[in-house]
């Protein structure tokens, strides 16, 4: 049933690529015909030109800075998120105490809170990491916690009759059962991380693609701004794909993920 790689790829993504091409060509045409001034919407070709021109700065400095913030924030989210989820799962009072606060933490508009972060952490990387963490840890906690809860009662009973203790059940049933849900959380979270880092940089900073895009926007360098947005989007996509590949590698060893 295996098709050649290209054919399979064309089957999966062909229509999206076609739509993208049509959009790009009409976009280019609209700008080239002078219907829209290029400082409002620059043509795709000038975005690419800006990207190439500024690439040492964009990729060598700002992309690296954003990637650093995203990685640190994501790592922190995974560690704290998983710890919270596991803690809430094995100790009910913790769940009852913390769950409302978890939800409250997500209802606070981050942009409004961010000046405080600047006050606490200054213009260092940590103020951005804090914003990344706040946007990214929630999906990890919720998905991991829900995944652990899924642990099937029938399996638990069967293992108990074999003499298993609480820890045995946690490691043989609950963790493997939680993995698919955990990975869904990671995928959501990594995308939020990039958004969080961008917001963090907007609020104050000297580095990063978000900072760069804002500076270019206020200088009417719309093409450079779009170039950095393109890079941000590509960063999000690549990080997401990395999680997907990791998920496939880990989950494929089981016969079925159901």
């Amino acid at each position, binding site marked *: 049933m295996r098709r050649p790689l290209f054919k399979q790829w064309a089957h999966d993504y062909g229509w999206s690529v076609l739509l993208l091409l049509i959009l790009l060509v009409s976009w280019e045409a609209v700008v080239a015909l002078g219907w829209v001034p290029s400082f409002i919407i620059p043509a795709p070709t000038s975005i690419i030109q800006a990207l190439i021109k500024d690439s040492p700065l964009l990729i060598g400095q700002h992309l690296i800075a954003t990637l650093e913030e995203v990685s640190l924030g994501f790592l922190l989210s995974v560690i704290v998120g998983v710890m919270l989820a596991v803690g809430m799962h094995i100790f009910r009072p913790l769940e009852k105490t913390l769950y409302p606060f978890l939800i409250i933490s997500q209802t606070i508009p981050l942009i409004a809170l961010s000046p405080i972060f600047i006050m606490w952490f200054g213009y260092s990387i940590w103020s951005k990491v804090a914003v990344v963490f706040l946007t990214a840890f929630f999906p990890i906690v919720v998905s991991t916690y829900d995944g652990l809860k899924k642990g099937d009662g029938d399996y638990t009973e*069967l293992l108990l009759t*074999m*003499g298993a203790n609480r820890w*045995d059940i946690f490691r*043989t049933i609950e963790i493997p059962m939680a993995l698919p849900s955990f990975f869904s959380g990671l995928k959501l979270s990594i995308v939020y991380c990039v958004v969080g880092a961008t917001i963090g940089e907007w609020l104050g900073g000297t580095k990063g693609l978000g900072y760069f895009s804002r500076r270019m926007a206020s200088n009417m360098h719309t093409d450079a701004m779009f170039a950095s947005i393109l890079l941000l989007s590509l960063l999000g996509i690549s990080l997401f794909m990395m999680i997907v590949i990791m998920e496939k590698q880990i989950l494929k060893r089981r*016969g079925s993920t159901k």
Partner: protein
Amino acid sequence: MSILSLHNLTYSYSQSHESAIIQGLSMNVHAGEFISIIGVSGSGKSTLFKLIAGLLEPNCGEIRIHGEKCTTNRLGEVAYMPQKDLLLPWRTVLDNCLLPWEFNRKPSRGHKEEVIASIQRMLARFGLGNYEHCYPNELSGGMRQRVAFLRTLITGQDLLLLDEPFGALDAMTKREMHRWLLGLWGDLHKTILFITHDLEEAILLSDRIYLLPSEHNQTVQEIHVNLPRPRQYAMNYDPHFIQLRKDLEQRLYEKTSI
């Protein structure tokens, strides 16, 4: 010697004793017996198994296993096989069969290599010799049930509680499993308690059959199956077999018609 004796067992899911699902149940099981338990839906067959296995505690009454009174934790004393095969989908056949060994903390549990060797011998005997590295979703229903049964045997317990092990199989596969189990029974040296809805299955496999009461005021009925062993499928047409079946059906019918 009696391997399991229940005396005046009562269990209710709610506080009030009037709605007890099991009321004053007594029965005696001797080592090496094959005993079927039949009853209409809701007569407490599965509850009885959970009580014996130690997943539930009786409201009153006594459970003796190997002649010893069990007051505290009975978990890990008898082997329990639920209706669903409950093989862990992310573990291979061999790793699934190793589960009871992993949770056994008694010094008598033996070395892993020995247990693996004995699992491999049993797999070969069960006609599953080439499947030890397969995942459960690669096996047919009958094969999965055989693996689940093997896993039950690996617990090393003398008393096996089988809760409708063939209930989910189609008629042809079920028939095959009966042949297989009858062929195995001679050298198994185990005691089996077997829940079933299938009267023919009960007669074909059992030494004795217990009919659970459906109304509170009725007591448990006991039927001896005096068919010679080793048994064969052809005994289905034996006049004695047919007489037994008629008798059983009548008793069940009388019960439910009240």
